[in-house]
């Protein structure tokens, strides 16, 4: 079954590359932007898939990491434009490579703090606590006026990447696409590694994991940190795509959307986030063109998937997930 899933995954990744290339040739930059949005959301969901899919950690607070990544991009760019140091003489920057590293670190650190407390609990407590901490970060962003508060922070010019004109849609899409591919490769390697084995065992039976001498808490915390860091990286790209970052990136709806992406695609599956992001963005585009109330239909689709198609959409075509 995994064979068919791999083929679907490769086909979709090829499609995601071909469509914007053709659209760009045809002078339809809007579709390039749509594809970029898909790639970024898929990367964010791939980060979440490490915690949720492999580790079974239902984090309803990943918007916190997504938004923090966005704010890293926004704040560094704002300081680079105004030439004011951020703190202690550290200057801002417009270089994506630096921004990404800072976003990874900031997301990882925040995940370490939130995870260290939340992972002392399990089940519904964990869901509610991650949701609560993300809301805390949201309210902080709203009430802290230095970087726009409720109104958010514009990025006047998209940040730069050496040798690439990031202002054009297609080159920026390619950057996001390569990072998504790297994220997926990382996920696949992680899943097959010793760490991945321990993480998946912690989801299946943490008593057993402890009994062989591996403390589940440390494994989960490490996974949560990695997961938060990757989602923050996607957040930095998202801010650059919109040239804007606001507290809405930190909202509970965002956390919910990321989970929805994974579920639509299939939990714990490598290509789940890609399938989910494509379906989500296309639904948004198609339904959103027909009715303003497209989320009503998204809600109904989601209900049907949860109640009747538990392996996600990939599960419908490729069969139930087999781990191991």
């Amino acid at each position, binding site marked *: 079954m995994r064979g068919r899933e791999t083929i679907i995954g490769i086909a979709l990744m090829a499609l995601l590359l071909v469509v914007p290339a053709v659209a760009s040739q045809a002078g339809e930059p809007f579709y390039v932007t749509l594809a970029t949005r898909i790639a970024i959301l898929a990367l964010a969901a791939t980060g979440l898939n490490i915690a*949720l899919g492999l580790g079974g950690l239902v984090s309803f607070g990943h918007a916190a990491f997504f938004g923090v990544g966005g704010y890293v991009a926004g704040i560094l760019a704002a300081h680079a434009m105004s030439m004011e140091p951020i703190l202690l003489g550290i200057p801002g920057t417009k270089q994506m490579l630096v921004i990404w590293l800072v976003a990874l670190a900031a997301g990882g650190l925040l995940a370490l703090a939130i995870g260290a407390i939340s992972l002392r609990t399990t089940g519904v407590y964990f869901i*509610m606590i991650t949701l609560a901490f993300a809301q805390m970060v949201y309210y902080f962003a709203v009430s802290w*006026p230095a970087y726009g508060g409720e109104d958010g922070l514009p990025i006047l010019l998209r940040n730069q990447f050496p040798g690439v004109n990031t202002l054009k849609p297609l080159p920026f899409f390619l950057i996001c696409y390569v990072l998504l591919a790297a994220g997926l490769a990382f996920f696949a390697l992680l899943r097959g590694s010793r760490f991945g084995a321990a993480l998946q065992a912690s989801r299946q039976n943490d008593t057993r994991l402890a009994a062989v001498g591996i403390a589940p808490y440390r494994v989960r915390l490490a996974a949560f940190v990695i997961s938060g860091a990757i989602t923050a990286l996607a957040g930095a790209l998202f801010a650059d795509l919109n040239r804007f970052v606001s507290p809405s990136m930190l909202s509970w709806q965002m956390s919910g959307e990321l*989970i929805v992406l994974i579920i639509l695609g299939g939990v714990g599956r490598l290509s789940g986030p890609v399938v989910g992001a494509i379906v989500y963005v296309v639904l948004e585009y198609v339904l959103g063109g027909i009715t303003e*109330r497209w989320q009503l239909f998204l809600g109904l689709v*989601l*209900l049907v998937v949860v109640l009747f198609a538990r392996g996600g959409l990939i599960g419908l075509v490729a069969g139930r997930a087999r781990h191991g």
Partner: protein
Amino acid sequence: MQLALVIEQLLNGLQLGVMLFLMAAGLTLIFGVMGLINLAHGSLYMVGAFACAAVAAWTGSFWLGLVASLAAAAAAGAVVELLVVRRLYGRDHLDQVLATFALILVFSEGTRWLFGSFPLYLDIPPLLSGAVSLPGGSQYPLYRLAIIGVGILVAVGLYLLISRTRLGMRIRAGESDREMIAALGVDVATLYTLVFALGAALAGLAGAMVGAIQSVQVGMGEPVLILAFVVIVIGGIGSIRGALVGALLVGVVDTLGRFLLPQLFGLFMAPSQAGLVGGALASMLIYVVMALILAFRPRGLFAGEV
């Protein structure tokens, strides 16, 4: 610092706490009895507020609106339980989170469809529109005192319901052993629908009462829902008493924090700076309190009690 101002803030905190209790009590009951985490509880709060505002505007009576809010939220709860939630018992939490998240989307967009995107306004009933003099000389709105009163009445009522009535006995039994009460011939399916509708009615009541002091709009329920989660995490899932203590704690700490922290920072900062820093930190205060309580009691203050 004036005493009157502190008393006023304390009362505001109590009012917030009471409202959170109405939300948290339903959530914690539903979790305790059915093992379900219900994200759509905030939608039921919104349903109550809209029902109250619409009926009050139509009939001119706040009180009819209040009755309508209870009826509409309970009915919405019962329908949701019968159509969707019933299929989620015994499923893993991820499925419950997603399905109830989907319900939020349906409720929110459905409400927008019916009422449009603009907020509705609900007037305080004339009977309660006055103010009361507080010790220290300031005036406090009667309506807010009434909310506190209703909250206390509901808390007492819930306590009596659960400890003294046959329904309450079944609810308690349902928490500990559902196979057993099913074997004893209790209609578990109906019991669950009832509990869910009761929780929904409490949320609707909270929404209606708050609707008169804030605007009634789509999305009003979720911030309250998340605060109610903080309450439950602090109090311990499944415990009504924990919900009460947690709700009052969160209400008072949040309100006093927003009032006192800026003043505290004002002692060693410029006033404008102090307002910013104090305000931003105050918005995080209850989450810090939650984290501290979790550090010592990972399962909340009253875990395992009803």
